[in-house]
């Protein structure tokens, strides 16, 4: 069944023809060519596919594209104003060596931004580790990811993002 779907992604209106079974992550990657959002598992656990839909972090591999009809979607590609102006979370990840192979990173960054906002920019190590339950990383051992998120929270607050 082919369905027309339209939404905004990173501030731009986009549309496409999908099947009912097309996942949001497939729509982003294959139809829009935005390959920053990754697929790492098939049980909705790894978090590599996390994007922001209407202000909430969502696993885009567990959402149909048609369910995002009319939604505002933000992906990793939409965070930085430019190469010299990264989002404070992206800066914190780089400053703290919170990524190695980079595959989990887009979902990790999106989840991290979401957790900072939900906790009103106040986080501690235990909370961060708990909030990362839905994001797997095999490279970093999480130590630096936690550091980065704790550093990014006040930076995000100061930057008003």
């Amino acid at each position, binding site marked *: *069944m082919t*369905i027309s779907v339209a939404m905004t992604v990173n501030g731009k209106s986009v549309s496409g023809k999908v099947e*009912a079974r097309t*996942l949001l992550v497939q729509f982003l990657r294959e139809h829009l060519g935005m390959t920053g959002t990754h697929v790492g598992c*098939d049980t*909705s656990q790894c978090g590599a596919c996390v994007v922001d839909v209407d202000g909430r*972090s*969502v696993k885009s591999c*567990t959402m149909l594209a048609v369910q995002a009809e009319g939604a505002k979607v933000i992906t990793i590609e939409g965070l930085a104003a430019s190469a010299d102006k990264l989002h404070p979370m992206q800066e914190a990840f780089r400053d703290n060596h919170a990524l190695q192979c980079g595959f989990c990173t887009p979902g990790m960054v999106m989840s991290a931004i979401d957790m900072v906002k939900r906790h009103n920019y106040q986080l501690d190590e235990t909370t961060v580790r708990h909030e990362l339950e839905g994001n797997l990383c095999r490279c970093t051992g999480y130590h630096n990811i936690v550091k980065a998120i704790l550093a990014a929270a006040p930076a995000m607050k100061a930057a008003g993002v």
Partner: protein
Amino acid sequence: MYDFAYHRPKSLADAVTALKGKDEARPMAGGMTLIPTLKQRLARPSDVVDLGGIKDLAGVKVEGSNVVIGAMTKHADVATSADVKRVIPALAELAGGIGDPAVRNRGTIGGSVANSDPAADYPAAVVGLNATVTTNTGKHAADSFFKGLFETALSDGELITSISFPKPDKAAYMKFRNPASRYAMVGVFVTKTGNNVRVAVTGAGPAVFRVKAMEDALAKNFTSAAIKDIKIPADGLNSDIHGSAEYRAHLVNVMARRAVDAANK
């Protein structure tokens, strides 16, 4: 997954119509169970009816001393609802422990309860709090709702619209998580309301069940010491590489005691 016809009705009546008369039509709430099932090609519905477009199915209300939660209310919203936190904090905590943050942004109470996954958390709350499940055709009492493995009292075309939870005097939920899936290996929801005590266990068996022996002991003395030696039999409990039946039986006692301690805090 296999392809299907997709419907996004705007009203409950339209949803019921969309589900009728198809080879195999399935309602979809948050999709956190249905979509992974479809991705693994374990189901092949001809039609999927997305309930996400129906207004008024989501939301938290307080009616008298009951918290009434719309079926399409997301776990994250139950967890952060000021009303739920005020009236039945144990329910908010349970919701806040389901899945992970992104899953909680999509998964719904109605979907979870209608599914009756043996390892889901909400069934323990429904039975533990003696909630009433309201559907488009009637109401169900908690004790007669969950019938077995993935089996509930819902008939074809019957959709949950809301669940009403009466306020307990004391309540707590303690979950021992499967290390891999983080679902409940054993989850115990304990409540005391007047002289009535309920101990509802999820994760350990094919469906949520109550432990009468613990309820009787706790009704006399609502302390963890009162149930210290009450063991439940391992027969009929789930067993897998993460937890044998004996281990789960043991955990039921441990989690029940911890839940009572937490409820008494």
